[in-house]
């Protein structure tokens, strides 16, 4: 076989992850520096890679303005839950140690283009962003803080849904968070919900879907039931775009899809319409 007949192969020197980021969607190699500069959005396919909560805070708020609230509120283990892979309490503790976060949402006060807000940002890396009792409590406290300070409330969701390990107690966080959001609205304060990849299950069926505005990132997975469960129920394959941000917008449940680069300016702009 002469050289020009050789099939295309991986480059002889495999790029190291010190230099390259690989887009999880289109597998393009992107220089790490460019990947960071683009806030983890792929320049080739516009895939919006998940951000952790601190990266998201840095993206949305004015530098140095964020002050964390209720860091001491952490996970609970009301059922003393164990499954085949061990105790939930051990898993949660390991997650706290690994992520440096106490729960699946980070809450605090901040400014967005000088507008003072209360902000909550979920982190998918913390047990799949699942809604546990600590998450619900942090959201309630954030909502009550927004009311006390007369500030808009913004929550960025990234979650698979309720946290099974906390059983019924996690289900009740859906009711609790919605009750707190209802109070924010009764106080006449804006509540903006940002749905990022993924926002499903018990989080989509509670605080994430009841924003004055529901704002989504491009291509984010947004839905109630899981794709596999639906396919088993209806015994049909679902189209690729099912439960994407674009699908959700087309069906009337999202106000606007905003690319990551424009999200902060978009929030500030709509808050100005709300009188801030």
């Amino acid at each position, binding site marked *: 076989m002469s050289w020009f007949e050789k099939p295309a192969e991986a480059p002889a020197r495999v790029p190291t992850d010190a230099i390259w980021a690989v887009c999880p969607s289109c597998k393009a190699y992107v220089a790490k520096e460019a990947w960071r500069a683009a806030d983890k959005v792929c320049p080739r396919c516009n895939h919006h890679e998940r951000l952790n909560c601190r990266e998201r805070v840095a993206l949305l708020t004015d530098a140095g303005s964020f002050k964390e609230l209720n860091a001491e509120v952490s996970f*609970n283990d*009301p*059922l003393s*839950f*164990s*499954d*085949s*892979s061990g105790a939930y309490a051990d898993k949660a503790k390991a997650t706290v140690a690994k992520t440096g976060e106490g729960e699946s949402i980070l809450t605090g006060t901040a400014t967005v283009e000088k507008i003072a807000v209360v902000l909550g940002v979920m982190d998918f890396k913390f047990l799949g962003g699942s809604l*546990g*009792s*600590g998450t*619900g*409590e942090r959201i309630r406290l954030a909502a009550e803080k927004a009311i006390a300070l007369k500030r808009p409330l913004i929550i960025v969701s990234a979650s698979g849904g*309720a*946290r*099974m*390990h*906390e*059983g*019924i*107690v*996690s*289900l*009740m*966080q*859906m*009711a*609790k968070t*919605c*009750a*707190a*959001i*209802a*109070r924010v*609205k*009764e106080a006449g304060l804006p509540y903006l919900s940002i749905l990022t990849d993924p926002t499903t*299950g*018990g989080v*989509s*069926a*509670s*605080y*994430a*879907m*009841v924003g004055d505005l529901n704002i989504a990132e491009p291509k984010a997975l947004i*839905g*109630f*039931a*899981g794709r596999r*469960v*639906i396919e088993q*129920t*209806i015994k*049909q394959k*679902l189209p690729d775009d*099912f*439960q994407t941000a674009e699908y959700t917008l087309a*069906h*009337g*449940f999202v106000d606007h899809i905003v690319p990551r680069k424009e999200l902060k300016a978009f929030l500030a702009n709509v808050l100005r319409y709300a009188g801030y």
Partner: protein
Amino acid sequence: MAKKTEKKLAAWDIVQIARHAERPNITDYIRLLCDDFVELHGDRLFGDDRGLIGGFATIGGRRVVLIGHRKGRGVDENIEANFGMASPEGYRKAMRLMRLAEKYGLPVVSFVDTPGAYPGSEAEARGQAEAIAHNLEFMATLKTPIVVVVTGEGGSGGALGIAVGDRILMLQNAVYSVISPEGCASILWRDGSKAPQAADALKITAESLKGLGIIDAIVPEPAGGAHADPAATAAAVKKAVLACLEALCAVPLKSLVAQRYDKFCAMGCR
């Protein structure tokens, strides 16, 4: 005697009783405990869900708005009722009826019995998540008393979508859970056949939920389960609901709503 010899049932056994084909459903309860029932149809937006029904009802002389999941008896009825799995139209109808209850000064009685909200593509397209979420928000601030009775299966968000209330009652052999034992087992045990273990770990029985402070009271069932004596079960439900209504109707609406907020906020706090 039968009661004395009955040994303590495992959570998985209780799941079987909660799902029993002959277990009294909302149609039975309406027949057995309501003096009058005027069904009200439709969400005024898309359609009329047969898996979640409601209307005006009179219970022990007290006028209320009754809503609840509807399981059928037999195949045809169950297909019509979609096995008690409500669609967005069902949750929106429930909200419409609760709004009427508030307007007319009637308390709401909600009967919960569903495997879960319907996980179909049309339900997604019409906003299953949004419909449930808005009910949660709306029920938290509804200015009229709400009594919830979990009569059979309290299946996750589909149950909670009509289960935010001032008093949460549960039948002795009902279950209420964030996920079905089968679903939990297939995810966390990677083996659906471990459902009995998952049922136990999830603490889904009335007794466990009372201990966790999620429900207020357990309504006793006849020996062998509710299906053994639907009339006696309905009588016990009626008595418990009327006692709750009596207490709640005496509370000023403002404190009632404030207490409801505190009740749900306390859940999951150490």
